[in-house]
Structures are given as structure tokens and as C-alpha cells.
């Protein structure tokens, strides 16, 4: 803290280390702690604090009092401004905190909703995946059954074809033998032989097919 007086002279000693005496007398600085000034009869060495005050500047002088009051006022005003600034800043911070809290509450509410939706969605996903797995298993079983049925169908149709060929051959063979029988009944041996020759291939096929 400086005064207007010290502004025009060497810098004052740190506050608390200087003690003024009534009547403008200067108290001696503490031994070992304060450098010696001009009042000690010598010039202060470079780096030493001079601590000189202007002539006629006493604490109790009207000019000094004004300066002190002015300093106090400035100090008070600065302090007030600082306090006002700090309080305003704190209030703004608190308002910001409240807004953040409000936002936080909103976000957390939304978070809870989202969490619920996520939970529902997870359950739904699990259910759908379960249904998909079941459908996949069912499809696998059905596909296997279908494959088996188709294999059986192919075998049976092949069997039917072979049986159809056998029936056709047997029918042809039977027709020929029956014709031969009718011709033999009328003593037409040549006709009977012709009839039998005509169906011999079919009869061989039929005989092979029925074993």
C-alpha cells in the first residue's frame, strides 16, 4: 500500500515494517531487518531502501488525512466493486448451475425414458431373435422332411414307371397268349404261333420285370 507522498519519493517499506512516530519522527528500523536510510547519516547503499518521506508530511496533517481518506475510499470502492463482481459472478455461476441442473434433470429423465425404451427394445429383440431361431429350426426340420419326401417320391415314381412298363408288357403278352389260345381252339396252329411270336418280346420283358 502506497500513499501519494511516497509516489514522489523512494518506495516505502513494506507495510508493517515501518512505524511512524507522532510528530513526524521516524522510528528506527529493526536491526538486521531494515537497511539504514539517510536519517542515519549516510546515503543508502545501492539496493538499500531509503524510506524517506517528504518534508512536512505527517500522519496527522490535513493533506495526509485527505489522502488517507481518499485511499480508503478508493480501497473501499475497489473492494465493493470486487465484491460486487464476485457476487455477480457467483450468482451467474449459480444461475448457470441451476440451468445445468435443470438440463441435467431433463437429460436424466430422457435418459430414463431412453433406458426404458432400450430395455423394451432389448426384450423385443430377444423375442424376435427367439422367434427367428424357432422359425429357422422349423424350417430346417421341414426342409429335411421335404428332402426325404422328395427322395421317396422320386423312388416311388421310378417304381411306378417300372411297374407301368411291366403292366404294359404283361398286358401285351397276355393278349398274344390269349389270341394264340383262341386260335389253337379253332385248330389254327399257324395263327397261334404267329400270335405268340408277336408278343414274345413283351412276354420276355414282363417275365424279367416280375422276376
Amino acid at each position: 500500500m502506497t500513499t501519494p507522498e511516497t509516489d514522489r519519493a523512494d518506495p516505502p517499506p513494506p507495510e508493517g515494517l515501518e512505524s511512524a512516530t507522532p510528530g513526524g519522527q521516524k522510528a528506527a528500523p529493526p536491526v538486521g531487518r531494515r537497511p539504514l536510510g539517510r536519517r542515519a547519516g549516510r546515503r543508502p547503499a545501492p539496493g538499500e531502501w531509503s524510506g524517506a518521506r517528504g518534508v512536512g508530511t505527517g500522519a496527522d496533517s490535513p493533506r495526509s488525512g485527505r489522502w488517507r481518506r481518499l485511499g480508503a475510499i478508493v480501497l473501499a470502492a475497489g473492494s465493493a466493486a470486487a465484491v460486487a463482481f464476485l457476487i455477480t459472478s457467483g450468482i451467474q455461476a449459480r444461475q448457470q448451475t441451476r440451468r445445468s441442473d435443470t438440463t441435467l434433470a431433463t437429460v436424466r429423465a430422457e435418459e430414463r425414458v431412453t433406458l426404458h425404451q432400450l430395455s423394451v427394445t432389448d426384450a423385443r429383440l430377444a423375442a424376435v431373435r427367439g422367434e427367428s431361431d424357432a422359425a429357422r429350426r422349423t424350417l430346417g426340420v421341414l426342409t429335411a422332411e421335404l428332402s426325404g419326401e422328395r427322395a421317396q417320391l422320386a423312388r416311388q415314381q421310378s417304381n411306378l414307371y417300372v411297374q407301368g412298363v411291366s403292366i404294359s408288357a404283361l398286358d401285351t403278352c397276355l393278349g398274344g397268349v390269349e389270341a394264340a389260345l383262341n386260335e389253337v381252339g379253332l385248330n389254327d396252329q399257324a395263327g397261334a404261333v404267329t400270335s405268340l411270336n408277336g408278343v414274345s418280346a413283351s412276354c420276355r420283358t414282363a417275365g424279367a420285370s416280375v422276376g
Partner: protein
Amino acid sequence: MADRRARRRRRLRRTAAVGLVAVVMGGAVAFDVAARVSMTHAESQRRTAQYTHRTMVGVLVGRRAAVAWATITRDTLRSSAISTNQELTAAASQLSQDNSSAFYQGLDLETLHSCLNGVTAAYTQLAGGSLPGAISAITSASAPCLSVEGGAGAGLVYPFDFPDPSVLDVGGTYYAYATNSAAGNVQIITSTDLVHWSAVGDALPHLPAWAAAGATWAPSVLQVGGTFVMYFSAGYATSGEQCISEAVATQPEGPFIDSSMFPIVCQLGLGGSIDPSPYVGPDGTIYLDWKSEGEGAQLPTLWAQPLDPTGTQVVGAGPSPLLQPSQSWEQGVVEAPDMVSIAGQTDLFYAGASWQGTNYAIGLATCTGPLGPCAKPLAQPFFASQGNVVGPGGPSVFTDSQGRLWIAFASWLPDQVGFPHSRVLFLRQLTVVDGMPHMAASSP
């Protein structure tokens, strides 16, 4: 003293003021710092929460996309499963049908094989000169061969060659006779239910001296008292034309004996006589109906002439013409007459067209009496080819033991038309509506 106190007070005031200022400043700083710390903390929490929320929303969006994908996958799988199930059902149905077809084909194969074995055995026996063996083989193969040819559903009752049939009821046992075949000069089969028929053998094992073997046709039998008289045509050995004779037996299955030296009807000038059929008139008089073949420009003609009470000799002034071909479907041929009294009216069934073809059919005429004349009430055949009946002919009407009217006829089978294929035996019931006979759908 006072001055020192004043200075002390001033110093105290200054100290107090400075302290107050320091306290106020400290409080303000503390307030501000606390507020800022609180704000910083709150901001941090807000940012953290917002970040967390954004993360959760991102996760949620991802999960929802996963749900959508899983739903699509599930629906696709289900659709595939449904489609596969439908295919499976169709395949199972087809397999069932094929199994059924295979089963019936298996039965058909087995039946065909049995029939073929029987016919082959009959052929072998006959070729070896064993008629009884052939008859036995044919009889054993009758059921499977009947099944092969379509069964009795449409009236087919005997699946072997049985042309020009006639049926006689003797006390509830039915005897059917037919043109010569592997079974002999005159085939005879018997049944008690009109459904199951068994071969008996040859009802006419010996032909008369004037007849040539191999052409003994269209036999029919009449019971006259305790005697059974068979009428048939046979080839006249010296001319080759057909003539009509009779043979007698004491039982319907024969053997019938013909010891005649000459036929009883033989119209050599008309191309020969065939298809004899007896008819007993309302007054008990026996008549014989037949066909003259016709030569050159002569038309085939159906005739009638009375017989003596024994039924063995024609009597009277001569034969009376009954019918000649006059309708297009007849193709210039009428034959195989069979006269019968129905609802007090004399009806004449006959066959028209070529016996070897599918147009062969049965006609109907109404007569004023046993000796005619007869008229044709229909412009078309009474019964023509239909279903498994192809070229029906050789009608023989008879009454069963329950009074029902039946018509027996021979027919080719589909795709087996013309000799040496067989003309198999059918039976159909006749109904009478307004005095007119009609072919019923029912069969034995």
C-alpha cells in the same frame, strides 16, 4: 494520553475496516469460488449425462435397427417355412397318391401275372391235347383275368372268348353256352349268382357226321320237359356253308348228342343258315328263329318257323321272314335273332353291322307274332359301344330265378377288337318302361 488513545482507536478502526473488507472479500471470493465449483460440477454432470444419453440413443437406434432386421429375418424364415410346409404337404399328398397307385399297380401286376399264367397254362394244356387241363387252367385264371379286364362293374362276367352266348336258367343254376373255342365245340360255363362263372367244358363233344369241325357257332338250349335241346350251326362238310342242327341231352351241361344225318335247317340257296334261337310262344308253341346269310344281292334275313312239340323238327309250311337290314347302322347285316315276350309284346333282339368291328351293335324290333312281321321302333341301335363294351352282339334275353329280366351279350374290349382277340361275356339287366325294354346300368 488522549492522543495516543485516539491513534489507537484510529488504528483499530482501520484494522477493523481492513478486516471487514477482507472478510467481505473473502466471503465474496468463497461465494464465487463455490458457485463456480458448483457450476463446473453441474456442467460436467450435464455434459456427462448428455453424452451418456446420446450414447444410449445411439444404442437404442442400433437396437431398433437390429429389431427391424431380426423381424425381417424372422418373417422371411416364417414365409419360407410356410412355403416349405406347403411343398411338403403337396409332396406328401403326391407320395400318398403314388403309393396308392403303386399298390394298385402292384395288385394289377400280380393279377396280370396270375391271369397270364392261367392262360399260358391253358394254352400249353390245349397244345398238348388235354382239354380238361385247359379248362381247369382257364377256370383257375378266370377271376384274375376278369379283374384285369375291368371286373364286373360294367357287366363283364367272363373274361375269355365267349361269342354268341345264350343263357338258360335251370332251377336257379345258370348255364351259358357259346361258339366253339379252345374249350371245345360248344363252350359251357355255369354260375349260381350270375357273377362267378366256371368253365364246365365242351357241351357238344361230338359233331354230327355231316358237320365239319372248327365252325360250331351260336348254340342255344331249350328245356322241353326233362330234355334239353341244343340248337347250333355247323359247317356243312360237303358245301362249307353253315347249317342248323339240334342235339339233345338229359342235363343242361350235356353232353349233348346229335345223331342226325342232315341238318334241320339248311338254306344253301341263301348262303347258309346260322344263329338258331328257340322261342316259346304264348300258346306254348315252340319256334325256331335264325338267319340266312344271303348270297350276292340277297340280303341277310331273319326267319322263324314252328317246331314240333319235342323241339327237334321244324314243322309247318316253311320259314317266315321276320326282318331284313334297313337302317344305316346295320350296314347291311342283321343276325343273331333272339325273340322274347316282354309285357305281352313279342320283341326281337338282333345284332347288326360287321361282327369284327366296333360298330357292331344290338337292335330291337317289335313283332306282331312269333312269325312276324316285325318292325323297328328305333332309328338307332338298342345298345351300341360304350365304356369298356366295344361292338356288342349276340344278344340272349332270359329271366332269372327272381323274375328279373337280363340280356347276355358278347363284346370286344377296348383296343382288343377283332379275332383272334376275345369276345367276352357281359350281362346287363333290362327294365321295361311303357312296354319298351331298356338297358339298365346295373349289372350282376
